[in-house]
C-alpha cells in the first residue's frame, strides 16, 4: 500500500493539473483558438457519463448481479445511435433560444412557465445530490483503501474525511471555471477541456487495471473465463438476472444520457458545433464499450481470489498488488468522481439560480420600492447565487454521504438518480415533437411521476439507512401488501428498479398525454410549442412578435447592461440598428424585434422565465405578478388583431384580383354579345383580355410567394453571388419595359463586382420587382439609376427613380403586406421583396432620391461573405 502523504500529494498534483488545463482552455477560448473545437473532444467530454459508478460500481454490480451493469451503457449506445435526430434537435432548439439548462428548457417550451422550471430544478437537485454523495464516498473509501486504512467511513470524524477536502477543492474549481463570468451562452471551455482530459485518465487507468488483472494475475481472458466456468458459484456472474429489469434499465439509461443535468450541460449547452454530434454518435459509445471490456474479468478475478470480506465495489483497487499501479488506479477513480461532481454542480447552479432563486427574487419587489429589476449589479448577484449554490450542493452531498454511511451501494443510488431524471423525458422529449403538449400536462405528469419515484425507488433506498421503517418496504404501509413499494399492486417479475421505473413512467406519460388532450393551450404555450417543434422549418430571424408593451430603447439597453455589461448591451442595440438600416434614438420606442433580441440575450443570463419577467417589468412599469397577466391578455389580443389584419389582407388581395377580373368578364361578354364587331376592335379587346389575364396570374403567384415566405417553406441556396452579374441580368430582362416607355437605365457598379452571401434567384426576383416598379412610376424620357457598392460588411444596391417619390409617412407602409400599395398597383411585390432579403439577413428600405421630395431610392442591403468582412 501507498503512504497516505504520497496519495495526498499525488491527488493534489492531479487536481492542480486540472486547474492548469481548465485555465489554458479558458485562455485559448478568449484568444479565439478553442481547445475543444473537435468532435473527439466533444465525445470525450460526454464520457463524463462514466463516473465512480462505472469505475468501481460496475465491477461490484457484475460480482453480484451478473451482466446487468452493461445495460447502463447499452442504453446510451442506442440513444447516441439516433443522436442525429434527438440530440441534434435539443441542441438546435437550445442554441436558437439561448437555453442553458434543463429547467430553462422545460420553462421555455411550456410558455415560460416558472412553476414548471422550478419543479424541474427542484427534482434535479433532489435527484442528484445523493449521486454526488456517492462520488465523494467513492473517493473517501478508496483513499483509505489505497493508503492502507479501513474502508468503512463511519469511524472517521467529518473534518478528517478526505471527501470533505475533495468537495471543497471541487467547489473551488467549479466556482473558478464555472462561474467566472455571466455569459449569454453559458459555455465553459476550460471546464470542458479538463473533463475531456479526465475521461482520458480514467480510461487509461481502468484499462491498466484490467490488463494487469487479466494478464498479470491470470493467463489472459480465456484463462480467466475458464477458471470462472470451473467454479459453479460464479455462474450467475456471466448470466442475465431478469429480462424485465434488463429492459427497463436500458430505457432508463438511454434517457439519462441526455437528461442528467451534467449530460445536458456537456451535450447541449457546451456543444460548440452541431457537427461534433456526428463524431460523438459513434465515438462516445466506442469509449463506453472499451471501458467496459474488463469489468467482467475484474469482477471474476475478484470473486476467484479475494475473500468475502472485500467489498466488490473496491475490487478494481483491491486487486492491484503494485503500489504504483494502485496509485494510478486511485487517480483514475478520482478523475471519474471529480469530473462528474464538477459538471453536475455547475449545471445545478445554473438551474437553481435561473429557475428557483431569480424568479422568486423578481416576484417580490418587497424590499425598497422599485424592485430588483432596477438594481444595478444584477449580473454579480446572479453569479453570487450560483457560487453559493455550488458550495451548498457539494456540502449537501457530503452531508448525505456522512449520514447514510455505508448503507448505500454505488449503483443502487445511482439508479435512483437516473429514474428521477427519466421523469423529465415525457415533458421534454415529448414536447419536442408534440405541439399539443401543454404546461398542465407536463406539470401533472412530472408531479405524479416523481411522487411514484419517491415511493417505489427512493423510499426503499432510504429504508436501508433506517430513515424510513423497513417494515413499510417489507410488508407495505399499514401491512397492506398490495402497496409494497417494490411490488406495487403485486407487480413482480421485472425487479424492484424495473417495476418502479415502469410505474412512474407509465403514470407520468398517461397524465402528460391525458391532461394535455383535455385542456387548452394559452397563446404563449401555443407559440412556444410551434417554435420548438418546427425548429427546422423556421428560418432564423424574426421569431415570435408576441409583444405589445412599449419601452424606450435606452431603458431596454440599461436593463440588459446590468446583466451582460454596458459594452455588450450597446453592441446589441447598435447591431440591431445597423440591420434595420434606420437610426434608432434612445428615447424611441423599441420595436418588437429588438425587445425579442434583448429578451433572448437575457435568457442566456438568467433563464427564460426571469428574462420575460424582467422585460415585462421595464416595459410596463407595473408589479410583476400583474405584468405577467397583462402580457398574456395582450398576447390574446394580439392574436385577435392578427386575425383582423388577415381579414384586411384578404380584402386587399381580393380587391386587387377583382380589377383584372372585371375587365376580363366585361370583354368576354362584349365579344359574346357582339359577334358583328370589326376585326381590329375584336383584336384590341382580346389583347386587353390577354394583358389582364397575365396580371391576374402574376398576382396569384405573388400571393403564393408570400404565403410560402410567411410559412418559412421557401428553399434557398445561399452562395457567394457576384452582384454585378445579377444586376446586369436584371437590367437586360427589363430592357424592353424601359425602351417602351422611353426611360433611360443607368447601371453603375463600384469596383470589381461586389460579392454577397445570398440566394441568386431571390435577389434577382427583388431586382426585377424594383426595376419594374421604377419604370412604372418614372415619366417618359425620365431616368432610372442602379448603383452597386460594398462597404463595411454590407453590399448595397440602390434603385433610384424620377417618380413622384414616397411620402415619409408611407415609407414603411408600402412594405406591409396588409396594406394596399401607396404607389398604386405595386400590390404585394414590395412586401415579398422585403421578406426575401430578410431571409438572407438583408434589408430593404426606401428614401428620398435627392432630398427634395421627388424621386425614390430603394436600397437593398445584403450580407457579404464572411471572410470579406
Amino acid at each position: 500500500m501507498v503512504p497516505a502523504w504520497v496519495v495526498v500529494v499525488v491527488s493534489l498534483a492531479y487536481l492542480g493539473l486540472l486547474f492548469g488545463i481548465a485555465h489554458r482552455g479558458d485562455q485559448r477560448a478568449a484568444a479565439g483558438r478553442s481547445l475543444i473545437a473537435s468532435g473527439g473532444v466533444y465525445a470525450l467530454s460526454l464520457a463524463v457519463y462514466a463516473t465512480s459508478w462505472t469505475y468501481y460500481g460496475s465491477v461490484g454490480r457484475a460480482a453480484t448481479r451478473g451482466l446487468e451493469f452493461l445495460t447502463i451503457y447499452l442504453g446510451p449506445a442506442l440513444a447516441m445511435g439516433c443522436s442525429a435526430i434527438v440530440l441534434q434537435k435539443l441542441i438546435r432548439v437550445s442554441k436558437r433560444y439561448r437555453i442553458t439548462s434543463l429547467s430553462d428548457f422545460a420553462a421555455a417550451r411550456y410558455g415560460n412557465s416558472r412553476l414548471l422550471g422550478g419543479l424541474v430544478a427542484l427534482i434535479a437537485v433532489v435527484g442528484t445530490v445523493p449521486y454526488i454523495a456517492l462520488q465523494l464516498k467513492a473517493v473517501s473509501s478508496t483513499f483509505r483503501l489505497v493508503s492502507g486504512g479501513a474502508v468503512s467511513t463511519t469511524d472517521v470524524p467529518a473534518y478528517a474525511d478526505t471527501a470533505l477536502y475533495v468537495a471543497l477543492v471541487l467547489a473551488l474549481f467549479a466556482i473558478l471555471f464555472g462561474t467566472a463570468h455571466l455569459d449569454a451562452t453559458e459555455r465553459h471551455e476550460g471546464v470542458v477541456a479538463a473533463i475531456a482530459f479526465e475521461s482520458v485518465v480514467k480510461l487509461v487507468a481502468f484499462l491498466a487495471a484490467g490488463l494487469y488483472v487479466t494478464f498479470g494475475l491470470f493467463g489472459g481472458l480465456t484463462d480467466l473465463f475458464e477458471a470462472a466456468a470451473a467454479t459453479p458459484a460464479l455462474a450467475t456472474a456471466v448470466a442475465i438476472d431478469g429480462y424485465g429489469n434488463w429492459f427497463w434499465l436500458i430505457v432508463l439509461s438511454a434517457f439519462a444520457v441526455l437528461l442528467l443535468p451534467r449530460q445536458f450541460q456537456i451535450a447541449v449547452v457546451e456543444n460548440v458545433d452541431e457537427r461534433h454530434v456526428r463524431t460523438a454518435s459513434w465515438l462516445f459509445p466506442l469509449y463506453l464499450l472499451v471501458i467496459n471490456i474488463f469489468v467482467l474479468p475484474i469482477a471474476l478475478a475478484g470473486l476467484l481470489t479475494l475473500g468475502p470480506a472485500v467489498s466488490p465495489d473496491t475490487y478494481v483497487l483491491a486487486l492491484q498488488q503494485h503500489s504504483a499501479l494502485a496509485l494510478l488506479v486511485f487517480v483514475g477513480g478520482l478523475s471519474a468522481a471529480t469530473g462528474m461532481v464538477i459538471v453536475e454542480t455547475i449545471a445545478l447552479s445554473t438551474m437553481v439560480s435561473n429557475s428557483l432563486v431569480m424568479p422568486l427574487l423578481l416576484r417580490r419587489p418587497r424590499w425598497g420600492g422599485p424592485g430588483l429589476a432596477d438594481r444595478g449589479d444584477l449580473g454579480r448577484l446572479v453569479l453570487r447565487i450560483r457560487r453559493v449554490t455550488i458550495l451548498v450542493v457539494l456540502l449537501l452531498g457530503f452531508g448525505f454521504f456522512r449520514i447514510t454511511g455505508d448503507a448505500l451501494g454505488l449503483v443502487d443510488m445511482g439508479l435512483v438518480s437516473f429514474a428521477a431524471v427519466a421523469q423529465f423525458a415525457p415533458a421534454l422529449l415529448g414536447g419536442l415533437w408534440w405541439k399539443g403538449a401543454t404546461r398542465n400536462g407536463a406539470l401533472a405528469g412530472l408531479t405524479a411521476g416523481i411522487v411514484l419515484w419517491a415511493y417505489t425507488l427512493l423510499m426503499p433506498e432510504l429504508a436501508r439507512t433506517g430513515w424510513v421503517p423497513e417494515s413499510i418496504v417489507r410488508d407495505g404501509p399499514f401491512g397492506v401488501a398490495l402497496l409494497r413499494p417494490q411490488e406495487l399492486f403485486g407487480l413482480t417479475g421485472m425487479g424492484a428498479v424495473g417495476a418502479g421505473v415502469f410505474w412512474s413512467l407509465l403514470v407520468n406519460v398517461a397524465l402528460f398525454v391525458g391532461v394535455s388532450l383535455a385542456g387548452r393551450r394559452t397563446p404563449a404555450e401555443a407559440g412556444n410549442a410551434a417554435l420548438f417543434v418546427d425548429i427546422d422549418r423556421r428560418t432564423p430571424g424574426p421569431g415570435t412578435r408576441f409583444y405589445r408593451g412599449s419601452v424606450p430603447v435606452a431603458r431596454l439597453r440599461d436593463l440588459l447592461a446590468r446583466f451582460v455589461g454596458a459594452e455588450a448591451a450597446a453592441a446589441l442595440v447598435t447591431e440591431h440598428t445597423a440591420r434595420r438600416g434606420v437610426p434608432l434614438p434612445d428615447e424611441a420606442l423599441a420595436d418588437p424585434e429588438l425587445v425579442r433580441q434583448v429578451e433572448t440575450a437575457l435568457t442566456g443570463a438568467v433563464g427564460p422565465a426571469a428574462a420575460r419577467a424582467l422585460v415585462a417589468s421595464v416595459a410596463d412599469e407595473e408589479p410583476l405578478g400583474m405584468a405577467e397577466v397583462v402580457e398574456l391578455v395582450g398576447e390574446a389580443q394580439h392574436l385577435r388583431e392578427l386575425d383582423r389584419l388577415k381579414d384586411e389582407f384578404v380584402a386587399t388581395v381580393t380587391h386587387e384580383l377583382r380589377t383584372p377580373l372585371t375587365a376580363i368578364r366585361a370583354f368576354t361578354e362584349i365579344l359574346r354579345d357582339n359577334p358583328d364587331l370589326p376585326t381590329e376592335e375584336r383584336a384590341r379587346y382580346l389583347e386587353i383580355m390577354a394583358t389582364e389575364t397575365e396580371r391576374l396570374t402574376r398576382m396569384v403567384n405573388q400571393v403564393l410567394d408570400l404565403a410560402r415566405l410567411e410559412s418559412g417553406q421557401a428553399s434557398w441556396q445561399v452562395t457567394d453571388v457576384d452582384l454585378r452579374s445579377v444586376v446586369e441580368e436584371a437590367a437586360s430582362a427589363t430592357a424592353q419595359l424601359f425602351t417602351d416607355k422611353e426611360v433611360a437605365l443607368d447601371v453603375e457598379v463600384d469596383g470589381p463586382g461586389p460579392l454577397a452571401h445570398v440566394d441568386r434567384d431571390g435577389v434577382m426576383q427583388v431586382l426585377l420587382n424594383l426595376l419594374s416598379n421604377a419604370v412604372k412610376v418614372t415619366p417618359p424620357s425620365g431616368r432610372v439609376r442602379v448603383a452597386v457598392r460594398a462597404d463595411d460588411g454590407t453590399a448595397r444596391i440602390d434603385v433610384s427613380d424620377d417618380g413622384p417619390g414616397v411620402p415619409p409617412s408611407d415609407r414603411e407602409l408600402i412594405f406591409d403586406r396588409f396594406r394596399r400599395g401607396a404607389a398604386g398597383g405595386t400590390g404585394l411585390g414590395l412586401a415579398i421583396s422585403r421578406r426575401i432579403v430578410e431571409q438572407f439577413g438583408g434589408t430593404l428600405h426606401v428614401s428620398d432620391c435627392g432630398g427634395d421630395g421627388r424621386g425614390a431610392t430603394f436600397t437593398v442591403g445584403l450580407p457579404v461573405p464572411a471572410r470579406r468582412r
Partner: protein
Amino acid sequence: MSRVRAKLIAVTALAAACFTYPLLSLFDRPTLVLGLPLVWAYLFAVWAVLVVAVAVLSRRGD
C-alpha cells in the same frame, strides 16, 4: 427525413432488438465460445457492429 437519418433509426432499432428479450435469451447460455462466455461476447459483438454502422452512416452525413 433524410435517408441517412432513416438508416440510423433502423440500425438503432435493430440493435435495440438484439439487446433485449427475446433475441437476447437465445444467447444467454452458460457456454464458452473460443474461451469467452457466449452472452458476454454476443453483447459486445452487437455493440461493436452498432458502433461501426453508426460511424459509417454518420460520416456520410446528411
